């Protein structure tokens, strides 16, 4: 069940992004990241960096993963908006 939830969430994200881009195509732009990115690029960077945030939290601390999950979520929002 957790695996299913994880992949369904990512699939929903991808479907939502696809519909968004089909309805209102957006071009590359430069934010605080050193490269110009599309929303799809930022989603990929956000997911990958979130995975590393959670792994680092898991490997380096004994606190609950909910904290790193919230940190990753905030990071994703910041990245998608200003990245």
């Amino acid at each position: 069940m957790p695996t299913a939830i994880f992949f369904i969430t990512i699939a929903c994200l991808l479907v939502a992004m696809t519909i968004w881009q089909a309805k209102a195509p957006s071009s590359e732009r430069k934010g605080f990241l050193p490269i110009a990115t599309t929303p799809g690029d930022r989603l990929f960077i956000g997911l990958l960096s979130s995975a590393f945030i959670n792994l680092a939290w898991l490997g380096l601390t004994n606190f609950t993963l909910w904290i790193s999950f919230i940190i990753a979520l905030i990071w994703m929002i910041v990245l998608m908006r200003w990245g």
Partner: protein
Amino acid sequence: MNKWEDNKAWFMVIPVFLVVAISAIIPLMTVVNYSLQDIFGPNQRVFVGLEWYKDALTDPRLHAALKRQLMFSSLVLLIEIPLGILIALMMPKKGWGASLSLVLVALPLLIPWNVIGTIWIIFMRPDIGLLGAAINGFGIPFDHTASGLDAWITVMMMEVWHWTPLVVLLAYAGLQAIQEAYFQAARIDGASGWAIFRYIQLPKLRGVLTIAVLLRFMDSFLIYAEPFVLTGGGPGNSTTFLSIYLVKLAVGQFDLGPAAAFSIIYFLIALLFCWLFYQVLLKIGTGDKS
């Protein structure tokens, strides 16, 4: 024309998406599923959450394998890139000599990976191997099955022999693409051979060398077959790289849960490097030097 019609080409991607889903995404989902369970048999499994990830991230053997892997990849780059450029510079530029040297240089690339390992096992044997016996004949004790250092030297020599030709071919292609006018101008100015290399050839090779560095890094980071055939990760764990450690865990010990968690971490590291690789290639393509 409305926006949906503008984007209908996206539907052409569906067949590719289906192929990727079957060949990559479904196996990935299976691995993620395994990584959250302790598997005892076909129908005996217990959900353990992120325990295997915690174990993998704090496993000193994994840390040691990762250090070995990074050291191996760094050494590969330090040796293969300068050596590849040197050989490319020495190769004939035209005539039958150019064709012959290209064929000779490319030969190691045509040999299957497991055969490479077998060749080097025989070649380095201290009793009958051509090089192994010769080294021992000079009074230097050398046995890649008994000494960690000797095993590393052998793996590095095999890797350099196998993959430097790729760097040579890339550098050679880059050198051939430099226009003759640059060399004529350098000759008029009385530039030395070193100055020509430093200020004309090396800057012009920037693009192909970036590709060579990234390709060799990725390839050496994922290496499995050659060192596995040659040393099996030994002696001890001295040549146990990440992929060898992973196979030992999954196939040797049948620890599918920990191996799956480790695979996901390994996959994420490889994905990170792939993305960096892709970004650098894009920058080269657009001429962005930032």
